[in-house]
Structures are given as C-alpha cells and as structure tokens.
C-alpha cells in the first residue's frame, strides 16, 4: 500500500468513525443520562436517510433537505418520548429492550409502507461533488471531507452544550441524581425530553449526510445499531469521550480490515475475515477492561 492509498483509507476510516460517533454519542448520552437502553436508535439513522431522500427529491437540493429533516426528526423524537419513552423510566432494562425491539419492528414496517422496499440513491450537492487529486491516479472526494467536517462541528457543539452551558450542567446533574435536581425546581422530564430529541436528531443527521455515500436501503438502521452498540461498549457505557475513541477505533479497524491483505499460509485472514474484526476488537477490549475503555466499574 503506497502512501496515497494509505492516506485515502485513513481519511475514510476517520470519516466513518466520526459518523459513528454522531450516532453512538446520542445512544450513550440517552443511556448515561436517562438510563434507557434504546435498541431503536439505529432506526432514527434510517429515518434520517429516508428523509434526506424524500426531502431532497421534494426541494431539489440536500441543502434544504437537511435543516428540514432535522426539524422533522426533533418533532419525531419529542413525539416518541411523550408517547412511549417517558413510560420506560420506571421499567427494568429488559422491558426497555423488549419495548424498543417492538419499536424497531414498527418503524421498519412503517418505512416499508411509506417509502417502499427499493434501494434509493441520494444525489450529492453539486458544490461538494468534486474530488481532490492526491496523485496522478488517486483522488479524494470532497463530499467525504464534508461529512467529517459536519461531524466535527456537531460533536464540538455537543461538547460545548454539555460541558459549558447551564442547560448542560442541569443535564449532567440530572444524570447523577434525578430527585435532587427535581427538588431544586428544575423540570427534569422536560430535560430528558430534550436529551432524547437531541439524540434522535443527531442520529437522523448522521443518516442524512451519509445518504449520498451509503445510499438508502431497508434494514440500514439495524446494521448501524449493532456497530454503535459495539462502539459504546468499547468506550464504556455512558461515556461520551469513550464513544469518540471507540468510534474512531472501529472506523480504523473496519476500514483497514477491508483493504489490508493478511495471510497465514494459504489462508487469507484479511480481508476475508474483515467482518469479524470489529467484534474481535470488542472481545479483546472487554477481556482486557470488562467495563470498556472509559467505563466506570459497576
């Protein structure tokens, strides 16, 4: 592998990792603050991608589709929280798993009814469809750089919101002691509703910006969900920093697993076993640190 190819794969790895963080960050936030295991989180990624497709067809541009999609996904998040999720706080984790599994089925079928089962491509905005030449034969698509940039911007906004604002302070306090925060006169239910909607919007945003690259297809949410759980577990459940490290690690392992060749004798380990590599990484991390890289031991 020459340097230009390596650079391209590295950029791909970082882009994939950052995208995963946008989704997994919300997942771990919802667990860390609200104590909810949300199996349906990947479904919001899928809904985002389908919204990007529908809205960009409607507006004729992804630039208008994305803000409209964010507004719609926030409304969806608020609605779901009000309808179902707020009833989950008093239930055990297994009931949460059961209910959100049911939710996956519902969202998947509604998607099938509304949008059909075909695979759709989402056109890239013209402004971002160029490529940057690296060598005579290799170039890197601007759109992928843009995905990375959007993820970085929103991750920083998230960090700022949680760590530096009054709202973030209340959220962090609410994660530690719900009753205490409530007795200080803060509407904790409203706070949770906000956190859930934020998680949904981030996952949907990830789906929207990824849609032109990954295309839009049934079941895409579940595929992403499992990888995001791997990310969250590697990083340590509830840790946003852990989710970032985990996501970048998974991005590297997954991307390079698919392009590096590795043989033992006649048997090609990579890329034949690239699909396993992510889970192998998780198993190794868990054996080394049973609560993830940045997790608190329970």
């Amino acid at each position: 592998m020459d340097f230009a190819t390596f650079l391209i794969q590295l950029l791909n790895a970082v882009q994939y990792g950052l995208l995963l963080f946008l989704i997994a960050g919300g997942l771990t936030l919802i667990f860390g603050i609200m104590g909810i295991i949300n199996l349906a989180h990947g479904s919001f990624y899928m809904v985002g991608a389908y919204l990007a497709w529908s809205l960009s067809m409607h507006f004729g541009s992804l630039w208008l589709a994305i803000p409209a999609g964010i507004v719609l996904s926030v409304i969806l998040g608020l609605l779901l929280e009000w309808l179902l999720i707020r009833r989950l706080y008093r239930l055990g984790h297994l009931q949460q798993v059961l209910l959100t599994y049911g939710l996956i089925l519902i969202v998947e079928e509604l998607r099938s009814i509304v949008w059909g089962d075909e695979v759709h491509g989402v056109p890239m905005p013209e402004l971002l469809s160029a490529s940057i030449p690296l060598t005579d034969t290799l170039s890197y698509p601007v759109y992928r750089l843009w995905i990375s940039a959007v993820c970085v911007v929103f991750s920083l906004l998230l960090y700022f919101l949680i760590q530096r604002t009054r709202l973030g302070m209340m959220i962090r306090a609410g994660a530690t002691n719900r009753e205490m925060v409530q007795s200080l006169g803060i509407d904790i239910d409203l706070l949770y509703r906000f956190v859930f909607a934020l998680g949904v919007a981030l996952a949907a945003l990830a789906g929207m910006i990824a849609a032109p690259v990954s295309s839009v297809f049934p079941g895409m949410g579940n595929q992403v969900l499992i990888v995001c759980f791997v990310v969250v577990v590697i990083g340590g459940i509830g840790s946003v920093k852990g989710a970032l490290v985990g996501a970048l690690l998974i991005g590297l392992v997954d991307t390079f697993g698919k392009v590096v060749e590795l043989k033992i004798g006649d048997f090609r380990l990579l890329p034949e076993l690239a699909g396993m590599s992510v889970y192998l990484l998780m198993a190794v991390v868990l054996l080394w640190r049973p609560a993830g890289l940045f997790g608190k031991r329970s």
Partner: protein
Amino acid sequence: MSRSRSLAMATVIVVIALALLPLVAEKFTVQFATRILIMAIFAMSLNLLVGHAGLVSLGHAAFFGIAGYCLALSSPQYQSANFWASLPLAMMAAGALALVIGVLVLRTGGIYFIMATLAFAQMLHFLLHDTGIAGGSDGMYIYVRPDAGLFGWRPFDLEKFGDFYFVVLALFLIVFGFIGVLRASLFGRVIAGIRVNEQRMRSLGFATFRYKLACFVLAGMLAGLAGYLAAAQFGVVNPDMLGWHLSGAVLMMVILGGMGTLAGPVIGAAAMLLLELGLQSLPMAGDVNLGKHWQLPMGIAIVLVALHLPKGIARLLRRGRADD
C-alpha cells in the same frame, strides 16, 4: 392445594392434547407445532441463563447454529447421519463452544455481558458467512433426515412428519421435566441465589464462577439440541442460524412469556410464532396489505406487552400469587 392440583390437571390435559395432535390435525399443523416445540426448547435453554441465573445473552443463537452445522457436516450428501451418534455429537460441540465462550464472557457483567455474548456469536456468524467453510453465506442442505437405526432396530422414521413430531415432543417433555427438576435442586437454588446476590453466594463459600459456567454450558447444550432439531426439520443450515436476529427473537420470546418461570419461555415461543402466523394472514386495510406488513401489529403487540405486562404472559396466568 386445589390450585396446584388444577395446574397439574392443566399440564396433563395439554400433554394429552399434544400427544393426540397428529391423529386429528393436518400435516401443516403438526409441522407448525413441531416448530413451536423446537423454539420452546431453545427459549427454555436461554431462560436458564436469563431467568434463572440473571445472565442476559444476546448470542445464544451461536449454540443453536453450531449444532445445526454439526448435523449438516456429519450428514454425507444424499445419505443420512445416524441420529444416535450425531445428536450427542452436536450437543457436545455446542457445549464445548459454550465452555470456551463462557470462560471469556463470564468475566464481564450486565450490559457488557450482553454485548460480549453478541460479539462472540457475531464472530462465528461472520466466520461462516465470509469464508468458504460449510458453504459460506449460502449454507448447506441436509438432503436426508438423520436415521434412527440402532443395531438393526429402528424405533422411528424421522422422514415421517408424525414420527418427527413425536420425537421432538418427547425431547421437549424431557427438557421441560429436566429444567423443572433442576430448578428445585441445589444447583438450581445456587444459580437463583447468584442472580439475586452474587457477593452473598460467594461469601457463603460457593464458587459462583463455576456455577455460572456450568449453567452457561448446559444452556448451550440445550440450545444445541434445539438447533439440531431445527436443522433436521428444515433440511438447511445457513449463517443466519447464528445471527443476532435469532438471538434477539428468542430473547423476546423469553421476556414476553415470562422470565424465570418454567412455562414462560414455552408460552412466549408459542405466542410469538402463533401471532406471527395469525398476523401474516391479515387482510388488506385500505391500500396497505397488513399480512405483508405483519411485523407492524407484532411490534405494537410487543410494545403493549412491555408496557402493561412487564413480567410476561406467564405471570398474568397466575396473577395474585406472590412472585417467585
């Protein structure tokens, strides 16, 4: 006293009804009942972990699938494997795999345990899916069902759907009885104690890791039994047999039916499969073919159960009684 007597009566009636089924029902019904019994064995094996030991596994299909592959690999093409040899072999293989995975995953706890079990099952899934081992993503066909010949004596013919049903029913009853006995045994009570408070059990002098590992291996072997029977019934194995979708579905059966109860997983398996069958034959609602989108009402049903029956269907049947 009258309550346990009526419960015993109900059990006897259900068993008699199950035994008489092939005499009165059509082939499709018998085969569907066979499928329910196989999934019930699978769900009962997972309930040993989830309900009794408090270990929530999302990779239980690994043992189900590996046993199915064992049958496929031990069946020469167009010939049958011997039932009496291949069944223990498949269960031993599943048990051996559970031993290896169990030693590793039991170091973790809680959600990490869920994810670690998922990780190992997914690794096996991808190993079978992405390499050419055992047919790759296409899987393998089992052209002829296992032969039950034993030194010239052939008590039943698995190619006949009635015989196959009775064998599955017998194995189901054995597993049901075995788990019932196990629950009441010292082993079962230690496992239940570990679920409630592992520290306390350890301080009482029980080697809790070994108990959990033994439970994990036993559950793996029983899942293997179910996987072997499923492979024999459908005549095909593929990597999806080890996938997380199946692990998730069987976990749903256990939670839906009622964790930790003897009948819960059986009720959960039957409820889920019957609901699936019923919903698939739903009519059109306006422009929407509900039968094709049967997972929509299924999802709604699951959500409602999670909200209103947090302890599962089995506990609904014995409402008013203190939790055990």
